[in-house]
């Protein structure tokens, strides 16, 4: 099963490499990993997407908790939650027809065109993985110049929150 694990860590040099190192040393897979400081500068928040059987996920959570820099963590997939990913995608847009078609698609997906020139558009799109994948699928493969995805971040629904 796919799990989204949200982690509060001490904002120390090397904290990220402890998490990455743990996953590679123990052969767990990481589908995506995002990290940034929080409103409390001494803490980083890390969101990690992984897959595994219940036993493996249990070990992953125990091993993460064992890292001295980990202050607290939450398996978001255990309850209702929201997940979001940001994508920036650069697509060919030369002919007027092509430009119109891409604009229309971006609108349907509630994307924003954030850079425009004679040859291409850059679109910003947020959503869950399925939505971003679906958008890519609707575009012609040959038209895509570049995609950048941030990796998943997420938060629990309702008042439940991960903080100190």
């Amino acid at each position, binding site marked *: 099963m796919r799990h989204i694990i949200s982690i509060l*860590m*001490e904002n120390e*040099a*090397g904290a990220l*490499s*402890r998490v990455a*190192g743990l996953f590679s*040393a123990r052969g767990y897979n990481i589908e995506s990993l995002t990290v940034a400081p929080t409103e409390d500068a001494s803490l980083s928040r890390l969101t990690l997407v992984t897959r595994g059987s219940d*036993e493996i996920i*249990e*070990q992953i959570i*125990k*091993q993460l*908790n*064992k890292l*001295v*820099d*980990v*202050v607290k963590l939450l398996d978001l997939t255990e309850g209702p939650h929201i997940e979001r990913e940001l994508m920036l995608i650069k697509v060919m847009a030369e002919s007027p027809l092509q430009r119109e078609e891409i604009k229309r698609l971006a609108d349907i997906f509630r994307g924003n065109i954030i850079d425009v020139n004679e040859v291409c558009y850059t679109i910003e799109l947020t959503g869950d993985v399925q939505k971003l994948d679906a958008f890519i699928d609707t575009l012609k493969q040959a038209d895509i110049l570049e995609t950048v995805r941030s990796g998943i971040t997420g938060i629990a629904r309702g008042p439940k929150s991960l903080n*100190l």
Partner: protein
Amino acid sequence: MELTGADILVRFLQDEGVDHLFGYPGGAVLHIYDALYRQEQVKHVLVRHEQAATHAADAYARSTGKPGVVLVTSGPGATNAVTGIATAYMDSIPMVVITGQVNSALIGNDAFQEVDSVGITRPCVKHNFLVKDVRDLAITMKKAFYIATTGRPGPVVVDIPKDVTAERTDYVFPKKVTMRSYNPVVKGHGGQIRKAVNMMLSAKRPLFYTGGGVVQGNAAKGLTELAHRLGFPVTNTSMGLGGFPATDQQFVGMLGMHGTYEANMSVSHCDLLIAIGARFDDRVTGKIEKFAPSARIIHVDIDPASISKNVKVDVPIVGDVNTVLKVMVKELEQSERKPDGEALASWWQQIEEWRARDCLKYDTTSERIKPQYVIETLHKVTKGDAYVTSDVGQHQMWAAQFYKFDKPRRWINSGGLGTMGFGLPAAMGVQFAHPKATVACITGEGSIQMNIQELSTCLQYNLPLKIICLNNGFLGMVRQWQEFFYEERYSHSYMESLPDFVKLAEAYGHIGMQIERPEDVEGALKEAFKHKDRLVFMNFLTDPKENVYPMVPAGAGLDEMILI
């Protein structure tokens, strides 16, 4: 008072109560060595190789319960220490390793003797630190000791750039430290403990399976009391030996790959397995599906990650063994129920039948010295009261099987990493910690050569160790596997061109003895132990064909032992 980083470090070690520091100097730690020179409280032990410093400190910790402390220089000093750090990590031993680092400004520049010590050691430490500011030095050291010694113990590395040891700041000893991200659990869950005790009282074929956690957690007394009250059989992992008296009738021996027939059969047939401070290592379980197939399992461990890692357990109890065992004893006292005496009697009858198989017997009429006989005689000559360190190989297993450890912290060996070269430096660490004690190092001609340079350290500090080299002329454990599983193709397991160990010992300033016949073994051992103030290297020429039995082949179930 303003002090330099180097003086702060040494003052901190004094204030923390560190009496021995095992180390080796070099450029990046020269300020620290200068600070050491100007004091006497912390005794520095100069080894001959940094690996030996880590093993000595590790064994100091294993034999005392206090953390071992190491000081090495940057680059090669740090990399040489890695094997010893990993050894301590695998066996959960508290240790603080201080590594020098190049000047902060040079970090990342491929500077002279620079390695990323924090990066290299990350996978084999409990935690590590790079100290970037002298003002963080004392508190970081405090955290290092706190982390190393609490919860599941382990090695912690503190990497200190040279400039930090020169800068000055005020020093106050940090008496206490708290960390919001690190709060190990000590007390076990009351409800779970009660449930466990009830299961014990209902069990028909119970078995205690206890490990290194009992030894490291100072819980041997508690375990012995609980086991005696219940009358249950006890088996130990190799790391757990001494956690329950080996000469006690309730002891069924070590379990696992080279465990006794009775221990492994008991595991295979028990209906309740009570695992205490043991981690279900693959050398212990054999084929997982066949491990304790009819048992419900209780597991007491301080590390939640140890629980249900390899084997799914029914009653997990996270907590310190000593604390949990005390509560269990109390619960038992208060309970009106008694263990099922009738069921236990027939369980014991079954176990005695297995015991009668006499799985550790060996040929006592041979013309050649049998290694088992040397260990048995060593036990007799030292009255079972020596500290015994070991290297890795067949000799290690014979030591585990034949030296009956009645007390905890007496059996010092590298179990998890299986590090050849551990034995001699470990014996040094033990002797420093217990200057008056009898310390024997059981080794093989292969292993001893991995840190033989330490014979020089032993002379410098007058360490009267007794080295028992079971010289079978083979990398015996490798040879045994090749005999059993590779149709006797002895690929590179023969130790050709061995040194003359007697002359070698003498060249290092010690006494060397060579023993070739079984009838000379006891006399030679007695003579060696008479030399109270000299190191004696005893080279026993043992039967090269002898194998360790029983043996559970890799991938087999515990009840599928190869027996003699």
